[in-house]
Structures are given as structure tokens and as C-alpha cells.
């Protein structure tokens, strides 16, 4: 009984300390998150962390406790004094708790969050979102704004870039093919569209069109945080490490100005 009490106190104490330390850090578990989808993932991550912490501390403490408290004074092969092979209470609690915890995790955060994701996406679809056609090719991200007739958004140097207005829903259409080599069936490979600060990635599959919705919630760009970038996350050949693009989340006014600028650039280049 004494062992259980000492262990219980240590476990509760360490868990309390762990949870307290975690509370001070939990806002930054993902370092930098600025979209509604990202907040969903972040809160799920933090919820799981809070509940997994006591389990981790329990097992870690058992290994240390066994080495300290149950250690034999010498290596003589003497049988242990306690030879329990069964402890109904322990087995029942262990199995029962592991079922209960897993079912809880599946209901919350998994089911609840997937449901929230569906609902968000449906709502954002109904709010006339900004549409961005994203084309992934080896090795370039290309951004097209059909509502503003911008076929390929680039900066003054002609490098692809993406700007998004803050707090406006965005619908990304993701496609993988090479617009310059459409005849080549080998040219399309799997890429993965990932903006770390937005907290979601989706694979871009040749032959399929996928959509993704989210709302950027803070003005930010690559210079305010390097996590605000498009990064290909799925290996797509030797150019994979360099398949990235800067992203800027800006105010509505700045976005309108940027669109004008893009249209001007396009007109100057003789594009449609």
C-alpha cells in the first residue's frame, strides 16, 4: 500500500507540474498559427497533450520507480517476495481506462473536429470565398486568381507569389500537372500544398482536383514569420527542397492594390 501511495503522490505532483509548464507554452505548440483551420488543429493538439501527459508520466515514472524502489540489493537470484500473477482491480482499471480514453479521443477531438471542419468548409463555401487556383508542377507553385482575371501572380522579378486578404475565406483549387508539358503523362507527380502557419496540408494528386478552405486571421508574411510560406511537403524529385513560395496575408485595401498591380503587370506583358 505504501508504494501505491508514494507512487500516486509522485505521479499527481509531476503531472501537476507538467500541466502547469505546458499551460504556459500551449499557445505556441505549433510555433505560429494564423488560420481558423490551424486553430482547430492546435486546440486538438493541446487537448491531446493535456490528456497524454499523465499517461506518459505514469509509464516514465514506473520505469524510474522500479529502478529505485524495487531494485534488488544484489544480483543474487532470489525470488521476489511478492509473486502476484493477477490483480483484478489493476487489470480492470487498465483495460477499462484504455477503452474509455480511446473512445473519448475518437469522439473528441477526432469526430468533433472533423465535424467542425466540414461545417466550416460548408459555411466558407457559401460566403463567396476568394478562389485561388494552385497549380503544382516540377518544381514551382503557380497561383491564379480567376475572379480577378490574374492568370499567374508574380512579383516584379517574375517569381510566383501569393497574397491573401485577412479574414476573408479562401478556397484553394489544387491541381498537379505541368501546363508547359501537358502531353507528358510522367510530368505530373504528387506534391503537397502546405503553409505551415495555416496548420493544414493537402496532397496534390495528378489527375484529380482537390479543394481546401480556410480563413487567414492575421496580417503576416514570410518576413514576420518564416512559417508563412508555401512549402511542398511531399517528395517530388530533386527540386523538392526548393519548391517553396512566399505568402503574404494583407488587409483588404492592400490586397485590392496588389490585384491592380498584378493586372497591370499582366497587361504590360501582353497577357489576357
Amino acid at each position, binding site marked *: 500500500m505504501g508504494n501505491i501511495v508514494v507512487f500516486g503522490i509522485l505521479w499527481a505532483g509531476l503531472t501537476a507540474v507538467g500541466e502547469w509548464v505546458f499551460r504556459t507554452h500551449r499557445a505556441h505548440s505549433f510555433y505560429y498559427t494564423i488560420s481558423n483551420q490551424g486553430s482547430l488543429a492546435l486546440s486538438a493538439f493541446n487537448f491531446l497533450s493535456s490528456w497524454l501527459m499523465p499517461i506518459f508520466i505514469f509509464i516514465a515514472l514506473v520505469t524510474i520507480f522500479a529502478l529505485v524502489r524495487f531494485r534488488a540489493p544484489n544480483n543474487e537470484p532470489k*525470488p521476489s517476495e511478492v509473486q502476484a500473477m493477477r490483480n483484478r482491480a489493476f487489470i480492470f482499471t487498465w483495460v477499462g481506462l484504455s477503452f474509455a480514453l480511446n473512445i473519448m479521443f475518437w469522439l473528441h477531438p477526432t469526430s468533433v473536429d472533423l465535424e467542425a471542419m466540414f461545417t466550416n468548409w460548408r459555411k466558407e463555401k457559401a460566403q463567396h470565398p476568394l478562389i485561388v487556383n494552385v497549380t503544382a508542377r516540377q518544381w514551382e507553385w503557380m497561383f491564379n486568381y480567376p475572379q480577378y482575371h490574374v492568370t499567374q501572380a508574380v512579383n516584379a522579378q517574375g517569381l510566383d507569389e501569393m497574397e491573401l486578404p485577412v479574414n476573408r475565406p479562401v478556397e484553394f483549387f489544387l491541381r498537379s500537372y505541368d501546363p508547359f508539358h501537358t502531353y507528358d503523362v510522367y510530368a505530373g507527380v504528387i506534391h503537397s500544398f502546405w503553409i505551415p502557419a495555416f496548420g493544414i496540408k493537402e496532397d496534390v494528386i495528378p489527375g484529380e482536383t482537390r479543394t481546401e478552405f480556410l480563413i487567414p486571421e492575421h496580417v503576416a508574411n514570410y518576413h514576420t514569420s518564416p512559417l508563412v510560406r508555401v512549402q511542398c511537403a511531399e517528395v517530388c524529385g530533386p527540386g523538392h527542397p526548393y519548391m517553396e513560395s512566399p505568402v503574404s496575408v494583407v488587409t483588404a485595401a492592400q490586397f485590392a492594390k496588389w490585384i491592380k498591380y498584378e493586372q497591370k503587370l499582366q497587361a504590360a506583358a501582353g497577357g489576357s
Partner: protein
Amino acid sequence: MEQQITQAEARNNPQPKVMHMAPVLRGLVWATIGFAIFDLMTVAVDPFRGRPLVTEPSVVVGWVGALIGWLMGVGGYEGVILPLFGSPSTWVEPKNWRKYFGLSTNHKVIGLQYLVTSSSIFFIAGMDAMAIRYELMQPSMHFFTYTGQYLTAVGVHGSLMMFGVGTVVLISGLGNYFVPLMIGAKETVFSRLSGIGHWLLPAGALTLIASPLLGYWDTGWRGYEPLASQDPGGMVFYYLGIFAMTLSTIIASLNLAATIIFHRARGMTWARLPLFVWGILTVSLLNLIWQPEIEMTFVMALLDKLIPFHFFDALGSPLTYLSMFWLFGHPEVYIIVLPAFALWNEIIPVMAQKNLFARDWAIIGLIFVMMLSGLVWAHHIFTNMRNSEMFPFSFFSEMISIPTGFSFMAAIGTLWRARLRFTTPTLLVLMAIFNFVIGGLTGVYLADPPVNLQVHDTFFVIAHFHYTIIGGAIFTWVAAMYYWLPKLSGRMFNDTLGKWLALWIFIGFNGTFSQMFLLGLDGMNRWVPAYPPYLKPLNYSVSLFAFFLGAGFIANAIHIWWAWVKGPKSPENPWHARTLEWLTTSPPPDDNFDGEVEVVRGFYRYDHDEPSAYLVKNPEPAE
């Protein structure tokens, strides 16, 4: 009288059949000849003239020739081909060290062959990891000259570690050596097949190592389509190398499962079967189900590349390849770790001299992990799925932690209030439990789709699976090597040194991979030799710990090697274990037991002194 004997010997052992060349050397020569013949045959039937002598199709056919030549050269010709055609086998297994360098039918020799080959692969793939970590110390390319070269290093590292080490050491290596001993068998069921099986492993590993010769491939160990069909010829050796290595595993599993079913000693009922044997049985069934599945997938992918069939590119279905790969790929990680779970509960009761707690639950856990492992694969491809499709896979991925937990429950119940002897194997098993719980709990994050969509394909995932595989399985392998060293060699290691070396790899390992979780959360994605500069400090620190870890593994290997050869003589049963392998001498004789084994009760009771089994010695042969 003497004259007659001389005549008889002359007829049965014709002189020209005595071999002069070492089998491995002959294997290499015959492999070269086989490659040349099959390759040139392919070139000869090519309707288009003017192609190079080695093309992707011809190298595949040539490789088959090389494999046949190699397997015949190492002893398959005398051991398999001659008997197949009705001639007596002229293969003589040497009695000295040479027996390890050729075809063998003795499961202990085969087990050691597997252990040594696999350790060599571990060393090579480990050096590969060191090169990868050296590259990642800087945010730009400074060591590798081309990104494809880096990606090939990553792919060779992963493939060798998975198919040449993880799947091999505890099953084909320690399993081949100890399972027959632990069930009181004198030999395995398919001994000759098993002997051939080992020689597929070095062939496969060398094929993978040679893959850069045909061009740098980019896909990593998963060979994702359609990138693979677009990649250079190195891809071909990826398929072929893994084909040979998985075939070796299938053969070992078939042999071990059959041996467990048919060659148990008298009294070795299913209810008395040792935990490690249960682990190997469940894992062998997993291997027999899933390794053929991945082989067929790779055959399809190879044909897709050579012909091409367009199974998996934009004209076909890239997602089908992904599902087919992970359908095998997730069971694979349980293939690696199930024997480790079993070993924890094999070693802990011995070190505590305490009854194994809830033995039935520990076995049920192994069986349910085996069955559930085929239902979780799609959590590897959540980023490719519609939201609604994620539900069931998320469910099973979370549920598989329940039977996994049974192994922990049995271990904790056994440790509780034990008189635990603090030895090197004890320490390493406790470290493995500590590491694996981190690997397992971080898996819960990956089973949750919204979190998965953020951390998938980042260093978070790399840290997670290295925690399960190195932290769980490789630490347990090292623990088992120390635990069984007195049985393998009859000698003992230095326990104090062993504990310090265990602490060394523990610090190196946790320093390396715990920081990788942070890297992943901070936006470091996989397969990048160049990355944004803000990630450099953390990467630099990871690399330093990684070098420390690599040196630690080498130090452990040197210690084990030293103890094996020069260590002090060990008592017959130094740990006072009760399982059957300790009933015989160390190292065991050729036919394992000098007599008949009869098991009379289970092996995990320490509350009485009655023996678990008797060895009825053979009568001394009359002079």
C-alpha cells in the same frame, strides 16, 4: 578389411567434387557470370540495335541471373539443385568457422549469419544516417553535391533499416537461433530452405547499396508513384533489392511458424509456449500475409516502369499505389516491434525472479495488435483522402493502442514490488519501455486527422517512428543481445560497462529524436537537404546528438564483440531463467539438446523451485 573400406570411400566421395573455392567467393563469380549471360541474352533479343549493353529491362533480367548464380554459388548447387535432380548432395558443412560462410542447415548457424549480416547492414545504413545528419548541419547543400544524391542516401538508409535490420534482427536473427531452442526442437522444419533464405539478405542489401550506379532515385523508402516511374534507373534496384530481402523474411517466417506448430517438444502445449515464441508466431503470420502483398505491388511498379503499364501514373491511379504500399507499410512497423514487446515480458520476469503478471493478456495483446494492424493503414495518407474517409481509419488507429497497452500492463504488473536485479538487460528493457511510450503516444496525435494534416510529412513523423523503431525495437535488440550473450558464446560481458554504454545510447537517442519533434512543429518538412535558415540551430544540435548516438552503437557493438570472444566464462544459467534454451550447454551443441526434452509446467512461475522441464540425457554411446 581395410582395403574394402578404402574402396567404398573412393566411390562415395569422388575427388573432383571437393570444393576448392570459398562459397562466398564462388557465389560472387557465379553471380557475375549469371548477370553477364542473362543481361546479354536480353540485349540479343532487343529488336532495336544500338542501345547500351545495360538497360533498365536488361538489368532486371541480368539481376535474376546474378541472384541465381549467387544462391547456387554459396552452396545451393550442391545443397539444392543436385538433390532436386536425383543426385546425392555433395555439400559438406564445415565444422570450423567456415560454416558461417556458406549454405547451412543448422538454425543456430543461420541465426548467427542473419545477425552478422544484419548488423553489417545496420552499420552501413547508420553511416548513411550520419552523412544525412552532417548534410543537415547547414541550411544549404555543403556535403552532398546534388539533391538527388541526398534523397538516394535517405532512401537507401530507410530501405536498408526497414527490410535489412528492423524486419530481420529479432525474427530471422534471434528468432532463428532461439525459437527452436525455446520450444525444445532439435532442428527446424525447412532447414535447407531457411539456409538459402539467409543468402537472399546480403544479395538484396548489396543491390540497394549499388542502386546509385543506375542513377539517383528520389522517392525515399516508400517508392511513391508516379515519381518512381519518372525517376532514374536506381529505382529498379530499389524494387529488386527489397524483393530479395522480403523473400528472405518470408522464408524465415514460414520456417519458424512451421517449426513452432510442428516441432515442439513433448509437453510444450500452446498454453506453455514462451512469450518470445508467441511474438515470433504472430509476427510470422503478419509476414506471411503482408510481405507477399508488398512484393506483388513492387512487381507491378517495376513493370509499370519497364513496359510501361500506367498502373500508377496520371493515366492510372497514383492513390492505389499509396494504399497498397501502406497496407503493407503499417503492419511492417508492428512486424518490427511485436517481438520486442514479447521480449520485454521474457526478460523482466527473469531479472525480477517474479511470476509474469497477466500472461494471457500479454499474449492476447500480441494477437490483437497482429489483427488490427491491417486496418489502420490509411492514416498514412490522410492528406490524400476525403474527410469522411478518415473516420474509420482514425478509429482503428486509436484503438490499436489498447492491445499494445496490454504488453505494458503485463510488464508493469511484473515490475511492481519485485526484487528487480539491476543488470544491463534490465536497464535496456526499461529504456525501451520509456522510449516506446513516447513513440506510441505521439502516434495518438497522428491518428487525429486535424493534427495529422499539420504534422504529416514533417520531422514530427520522423521523430515518432524512430522512437518506435530505434527506441522500441533496437533498444530491445541490444537488451536481448546482452541477455542471451552467455547462451550465444558461453561468456559474460562487463555489467558496469554495459550500463554506461546503455546510458550512452539512451542520451544520444533521446537528444536526437526529441528535438526532431520540435523541428517538425516548427515547419521542417521531410526529404530536404536544404531548408530555410531559421531551422539551422535546432538541426545543428540534432546532428551533434546523432553523431553521439552513432558512436554509442559502435561502442556497444565493440563491447559485445569483446565479451563474445574474450569475456570471462559465464555460468551455465547466469540469470536463473527457466525457459528451455538454458537447459542445454552454452553455446548449444549441434543438435541443441543432448537428450530428449519434456516440459512439465509453464516457464513464468518463480514461486516454487520445481523445474519447468526435464532433459532425459541420451545414454553414453557404447564403445
